[in-house]
């Protein structure tokens, strides 16, 4: 539909998360799309409710109360659409969903370091857990591979392999194992299959698997040639397959599908769509990094010159999967982020208890501190995992550093509902440990995926909403890499405001310094590193850079990269308190 025909329509965007359901209204105000308001309610995908519709309606009811208008019919509690003469209702609805059990996935490829890796990356672009991998190096017999698939009862099989016009016999053997495994499973439990391998085998795939898979989708090859990886078309097919799976698993998705005329996407996919779009729109020369710490998963989305890396990690989600976090990290690695003096056992019990009640929230200061420490480690792990799949052009100078970024955009309950913006920023700096100079934005209302799904309805909406200041600017961060002792001076900084006044800072290694610069204001920042420190301009290089303001102004993080925390717990806690105090306590 041409944008001109829909540019005045109000859009209700619904996000059904594992813990929280949000209803957000976008409407035209003074000729531009704006984020108007958001209502939320606990999600109801899980028992005892087992129908997302209840949470959706409660979120819309809360939105109605904020807006003072009617969106749900008073008698049937159904959505009023389109907008009525009395102002009730909305014109269109879009939705994203991240609620639902983790998608058990089998990935199949030919070469373990080529097509299997592409299939793995494809699987990681959604809420999946890889339960089995099959490739040519697999020493098991076909019947053993088949039995393994039957035993694991996957929800999804992702098949890749063979360049277009390349290998076919080896793929057919793999197809046989998958096809027989599907055949052996009860009809209602057969996995959905996405084939994204040698495109010339599409007919064979249809013949071999079409009658046995729960649903078969054939996509473009993720490896059209050995040197080329193109996940985008298959990611879209995968997103649509995941929504079909959710329809099978969760009540209420059908109704959402009707309301939205099919405009429902997995949240992570919709977020990825926006990051790719922003990366192109702002002609980012380095990269945009978007992180989201959610109950269902922690996701890391990076756009480097329009090339998207999307990693969705349910194992690092801070909801029901928390009990499994210790399979990926040591308890001490979480303890290191705590300002509290508690025992490792207390922390362990917290993880297990919280996983029983993923929708619950910290009620005390101590619980909040524990929750933030866990989120730090979950995000730390997710970012390091995603970094391995960043494109070659985005590889950092040193393996233990992050690549330089143009922007960080963060969201998720732990960050957006944090106790203060300073604490949210500190969590991001600790976990991501960015290098260089970049603004950091907070998506406090988790709008990004909703803008992503709304973009398929209206191209102008995302741009206009973002330009209207929908995200909170936390500040511009300057990270300093230096080889120095704690307390050594490593940088002189001078901030020159637009009115000519100045603020200065003598930055010592191990510290955090803030130079005030309110949101919406620009200034010039003069950096003069000492001891060959690198403040984003190169080792020992001085210079002047334009910076934009934010809630915390300009934040100079001279704590070093990678961040080295003292081994002594008393000293470490003391230091963390000092950093916490520096960003406002």
């Amino acid at each position, binding site marked *: 539909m041409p944008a001109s025909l829909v540019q005045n329509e109000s859009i209700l965007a619904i996000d059904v998360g594992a813990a929280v359901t949000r209803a957000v209204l976008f409407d035209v105000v003074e000729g531009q799309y704006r984020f108007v308001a958001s209502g939320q*309610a*606990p999600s*109801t*995908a*899980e*028992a*005892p*409710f*087992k129908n997302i519709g*209840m*949470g959706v309606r*409660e979120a819309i009811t809360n939105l109605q109360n904020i807006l003072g208008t009617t969106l749900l019919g008073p008698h049937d509690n159904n959505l009023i659409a389109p907008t009525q003469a009395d102002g009730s209702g909305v014109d269109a609805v879009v939705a994203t969903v991240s609620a*639902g*059990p983790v998608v058990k996935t089998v990935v199949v490829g030919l070469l373990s370091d080529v097509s299997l890796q592409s299939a793995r990356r494809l699987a990681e672009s959604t809420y999946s857990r890889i339960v089995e991998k099959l490739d040519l190096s697999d020493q098991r*017999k*076909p*019947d053993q591979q*088949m*039995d393994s698939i*039957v035993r694991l009862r996957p929800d999804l099989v992702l098949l890749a392999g063979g360049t277009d016009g390349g290998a076919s016999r080896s793929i057919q053997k793999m197809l046989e194992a998958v096809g*027989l495994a599907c*055949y*052996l499973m*009860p009809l209602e439990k057969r996995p959905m299959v996405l084939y994204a391998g040698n495109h010339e085998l599409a007919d064979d795939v249809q013949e071999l698997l079409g009658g046995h898979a729960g649903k078969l989708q054939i996509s473009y090859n993720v490896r059209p040639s050995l040197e080329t990886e193109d996940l985008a078309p298959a990611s879209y097919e995968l997103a649509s397959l995941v929504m079909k799976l959710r329809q099978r*698993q*969760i009540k209420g998705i059908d109704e959402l599908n009707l309301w939205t005329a099919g405009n429902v996407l997995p949240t992570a996919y919709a977020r990825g769509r926006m990051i790719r779009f922003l990366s192109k729109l702002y002609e980012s020369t380095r990269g945009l990094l978007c992180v989201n710490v959610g109950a269902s998963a922690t996701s890391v989305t990076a756009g480097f010159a329009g090339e998207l890396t999307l990693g969705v990690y349910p194992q690092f989600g801070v909801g*029901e999967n928390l*009990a499994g976090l210790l399979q990926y990290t040591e308890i001490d690695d979480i303890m290191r982020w705590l300002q509290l003096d508690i025992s490792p*056992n*207390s922390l*362990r*019990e*917290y*993880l*297990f*208890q*919280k996983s*029983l*009640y*993923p*929708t*619950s*929230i*910290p*009620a*005390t*200061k*101590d*619980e*909040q501190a524990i929750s933030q420490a866990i989120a730090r480690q979950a995000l730390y792990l997710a970012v390091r995992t995603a970094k391995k799949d960043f494109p070659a052009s985005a590889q950092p100078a040193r393996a233990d550093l992050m690549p330089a970024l143009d922007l960080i955009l963060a969201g998720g309950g732990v960050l957006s*509902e*944090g*106790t*203060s913006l300073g604490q949210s920023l500190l969590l991001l700096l600790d976990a991501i440990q960015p290098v260089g100079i970049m603004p950091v934005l907070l998506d406090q209302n988790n709008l990004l995926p909703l803008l992503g799904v709304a973009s398929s309805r209206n191209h102008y909406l995302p741009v206009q909403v973002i330009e209207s200041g929908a995200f909170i600017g936390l500040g511009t961060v300057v990270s300093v890499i230096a080889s120095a002792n704690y307390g050594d001076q490593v940088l002189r900084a001078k901030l020159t405001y637009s009115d000519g006044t100045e603020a200065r800072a003598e930055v010592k290694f191990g510290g955090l310094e803030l130079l005030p610069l309110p949101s919406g204001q620009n200034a010039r920042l003069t950096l003069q590193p000492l001891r060959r420190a690198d403040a984003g301009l190169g080792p020992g290089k001085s210079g002047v850079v334009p910076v934009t303001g934010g809630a915390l102004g300009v934040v100079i993080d001279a704590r070093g990269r990678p961040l080295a925390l003292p081994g002594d717990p008393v000293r470490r806690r003391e230091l963390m308190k000092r950093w916490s105090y520096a960003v406002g306590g």
Partner: protein
Amino acid sequence: MLAPVLHVLPLATIVRERLLPVSGKVSAHVNQRVNPTDVVAEASFAREHVLLDVARTFGVSANAADKLIKVKEGDRVMQGALVAESRGIFPRSIRAPRAGRVMVAGGGQVLMEVGDARIELRAGLPGVVTQVIPERGVVIRTAGALIQGVWGNGRIDNGLMTSLIEKPDDVLTADRLDVSLRGSVILGGHVRDADTLRVAAELPVRGLIISSLLSPLIASGYQMRYPILVLDGFGAIPMNSAAFRLLTTNNKREVTVNAEHFDRYSGNRPEVIIPLPVSTEPAEPNAYVTFAVGQMVRMRRPPNTGMIGTISTLHRGLSSLPSGLRAPAADVRLENGEAVLVPLVNLEVVG
């Protein structure tokens, strides 16, 4: 706001679906009275499969191979039975490596299922079968006390319950378990060492109902062959007073411990059922309600995890919590008289 309900009920009608994981044969019939350990359905399934690639072994096309296959779909074959034989002066043969059943014969291949395993589905609770779900299982209805928990080790059993708990924060230790408890379902408090689980297994007991478990013991818990049901969670959490009162007053009664895994999507959760005779059938409990003043609630999170209280005020809009977060919340009067502000998402209604 909608509120999940934790069932701690002295008398309710309990309806439970019991299903096989795979298709099988249902042996129970409608109106049949069943005991917890009665088998109501059974299924057999193949542990493994064997794929015999006839075409590849004989080096012929799939079509040619199909003509050499001597078995057909559904055939039961013994180990060493002839599956396919080539032609010529020196014919070669393919024989069944193990006894099994032919699932598919065609396309130049033979797929056999081998290593039959049987699953017996037990009733899990005493009651009357009200519905048979063909090839899958039954619906059973009973009346009695119902107490739900938060974690189970996946096992199920029944027996006479013996209480070893005097107050909600008691710790159950191995030295409390003696031979007189053999065959009993033990009601205990917090378990903090693997020895307690091991000694209970050695007696053996028919089940363990406890308030809380240290999380490092979860792995040991799964290894135990008797059901372990945790009522309140992980760590040193006292038993919630509602469950404590109900269970201790039913000491020496026959109970069923269904320590199935908590499945947050299906709603299946571990539970204790104490069957009771009734003259008129009590109501079926609601799975969820709307939060309201006067409701009895249980705290799901610190600082008062597991404690029972009553909602005295439901605040409008969002309330500021000591954590710094803002959320819909209620004032709850605890049983010790203390009033606390609790976010609604940290509460569940007891009833």
